């Protein structure tokens, strides 16, 4: 369920690093908890995001939730398809419905994040 090549936060974001670019999304657990997603608000390209700070929000029928940047960097790309099809976050949160890409400014921060197995254990303990 949770890809081994991603790293995870306790706030239910994931990041996958290719070279110095990190792709960021929310986890399947997060989309299940949120339910039907109706809005995704993302930062603009060029925005600096900081590990643990707000980097946007997702809104479901029930509530709105912040997205926290799992790592620091500059936003290089946003997934603009989500503006018209936010429900993709419910169906493919680990794939097509990634949120933003950033150029990592502090790659060492990755060490603070959870592995897939650690994240899986974490959400099971949360239940």
């Amino acid at each position, binding site marked *: 369920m949770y890809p081994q090549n991603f790293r995870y936060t306790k706030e239910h974001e994931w990041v996958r690093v290719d070279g110095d670019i990190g792709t960021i999304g929310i986890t399947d657990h997060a989309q299940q*908890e949120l*339910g*039907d997603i*109706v*809005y995704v608000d993302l930062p603009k390209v060029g925005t600096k995001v900081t590990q643990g700070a707000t980097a946007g929000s997702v809104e479901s*029928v*029930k509530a*709105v939730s912040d997205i926290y940047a799992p790592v620091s960097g500059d936003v290089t790309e946003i997934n603009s398809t989500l503006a018209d099809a936010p429900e993709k976050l419910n169906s493919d949160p680990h794939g097509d419905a990634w949120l933003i890409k950033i150029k990592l400014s502090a790659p060492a921060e990755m060490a603070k994040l959870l592995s897939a197995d650690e994240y899986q254990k974490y959400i099971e303990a949360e239940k």
Partner: protein
Amino acid sequence: MAAASLLRATPLNSVHRALGAKLVDFGGWEMPVQYSGIIEEHQTVRRAVGLFDVSHMGEIEIRGPEAGQLADFATTNHARKLKIGQAHYSGLLYAHGGFVDDILVHKVADDHYFLCVNASNQEKDFEHIRGLNRFDAQPELSSARYVQLAIQGPKGPATLQKLTPVDLCKIRYYWFADGVVSGAQARIAHTGYTGEDGFEIYIAPEEAERVWNEVIAAGAEFGIKPCGLGARNTLRLEAGMALYGHEIDASILPLEAGLDWIVRFDKGDFVGREALVQLRERGVKRRLIGFEMRGHGIGRDGYEVYVDGQPAGWVTSGSPSPTLNKHIGMCYLSAERAEPGRAIQIMVRSQLVDAVTVAIPFYKRAK
């Protein structure tokens, strides 16, 4: 979820778990907020039929020769005018006119009234009614004796009819009958909180699981789905129905909430009457009105409403409307501003977003 064991649960809790429901703390009750998804469940109720466990709702019964006098003194609507087998929506008020709760009153007999009240208010309601009892009447908090199931949607009557010999066509809207459903003794009420046709039934807890399963089986041909409180909320919001703690609470008077129609000034004295008479003479200062979002965002419960750049009110409920495909809500505005078609703004997470006031309800089913 660590506190789950402290929450109250309905007799159907294990059924919800087995169905994969997402359970949440709802006013101290562990309740299903959704099964397959709020939007899908909502559409199922509008187009076919959905089954809700609403056993968290409380029941208070008033019996005795002066049961009607106590009911009429404690509530705003005219309980004694009900015919036997008829029900109505009503308010329990404090002396200052604010809501203790909003309730359904069913007249079972001249000496027996059956009240359906909000889950988290039931003990408060019971103590309130008991404190007003200077009549030959006995109020009783009887919630533990009832499971309440709501079978709602255009196929709700056809679903329930398969399980009961009672001719449901003969039970008019806001009337009820006692009879048998799936072999269980039931109070069958033609009521609901979805804006759709359907019934609410009250049965003994021991019968709950079997009746639940039989309703699901009976509705299978129509595509019935179990529905949670998430869909119940979006459905009632589209229908413009108040939810205690949102549109109404101890600080809100019925005339402000557009609930003049449940206040019967002509019936004699009742708790809150004097305050309402004074408010009517002074004029209502604020009123509930609907809104639709125009800009990007959803005005949610507690968000501030602005008119001409100035704070002017607050949102009581807001959500995407799956039926209308818009974002809708209700808010309080000063009375002179609470009219449809006014441009307003709502402070959505530090940004003012455009919206426009509209009349309530947002949705009316075709009769």
